[in-house]
């Protein structure tokens, strides 16, 4: 299963970025291989509008199944629902701790 966490930095030990569509980076963690991939989200970060739905589209393309972030806006939420991607809001701490907390739950 692929879990994505919105991140302020490129490492899994970076702090969680509370923004979804305008997150600086997105860390995608694969629970099977226990490896992670970093997605640079700068293009979406600088968009005048529609950042959330484009980020959601990218997550669908990456076959992410679960997203951990601060908050998802209404349009991004609609796009994620359409893609069948679940999300958990109010994530905090580092990306690693957010993933561990989620796996423990």
């Amino acid at each position, binding site marked *: 299963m692929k879990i994505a966490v919105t991140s302020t930095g490129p490492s899994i030990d970076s702090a969680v970025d509370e923004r979804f569509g305008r997150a600086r980076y997105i860390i995608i963690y694969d629970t099977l291989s226990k490896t992670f991939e970093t997605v640079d989200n700068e293009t979406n970060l600088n968009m005048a*509008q529609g950042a959330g*739905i484009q980020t959601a*589209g990218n997550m*669908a393309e990456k076959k992410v199944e679960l997203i951990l972030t601060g908050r998802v806006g209404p*349009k991004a939420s609609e796009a994620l629902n*359409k*893609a069948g991607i679940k999300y958990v809001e109010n994530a905090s701490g580092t990306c690693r701790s957010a993933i561990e907390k989620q796996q423990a739950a």
Partner: protein
Amino acid sequence: MLNKITTPLKIAVASGKGGTGKTSVAVNMAAAAATALSFLDCDAEAPNAHLFFQKQAGFRADNHDEFFDGVEEFYVTVPEFNENLCNGCGFCKTVCKFNAITMILNKPLFFAELCHSCDACLKVCSMGAIKAAKKMTGKIRHKKADRDIALTDAILNVSEAKSPPLIKKIVKSDSGPSLTIIDAPPGTSCPLVAAVYNADYIILVTEPTPFGFSDLKLAVETARQLKVKFGVVINKYDGDFGDIKKYCETENIRIIGIIPFDIQMARVYSGGGIIVDEMPHTRELFLKILENAVSEAVK
């Protein structure tokens, strides 16, 4: 002097900051003009100029549509997607400069509120999966000349975010015989630009407050970029110009009128009244502002 205008002339009233007195200045200049003119209320998110004219004409404030002679619906083009014809190429998403389309599981997902009706997606779809549909985003209302003033306003539907197409439409279709007064929306973004871009002169109404001054500077920058002539009216002047007068001198901007802070004017305005009618001694003041704007515009 106003009777001598021979070519169509558009005078816009704008401000940057809301609440400085755009509509007060625009409506009262129109009422003071005593010449045939066209009045465009371009504040499509909250048009209110008609309230003053309708009270003057004896209509009740809650009966807006009856006051107008004609109401037309305004439509923009939006794409309509047929998923069955779509091959999932994603070209529509690529060309959309407004990020209104995303691809989810190889199918387009469209957000109408982000769409700017540019039609790019319609043009690039090779599968015929996108068709042009119409969306009603607002109304345009006309009132035939009453006391020399022909009023047109635009009213955006509740929940719609984009007023510029609607504003452009009334500005473009204005066939004012000689003089047109444009009551512009507040701010200095797209709605304002749509209202004033082809005006001959912009009256920037400001007030001696820090916000009024700050937004005046933004409005000046906007007018300069649009290359439209402009001057400043200081409203609610209470004996202290703040930094406005000095700024105008430094920037070589002409102050074409000063309206004193007057509780009676505020009272008349709040009651939906036309100040120059209820306080006849103010007629000269508003007329002078308009005449100054006209003579600067034709210079």
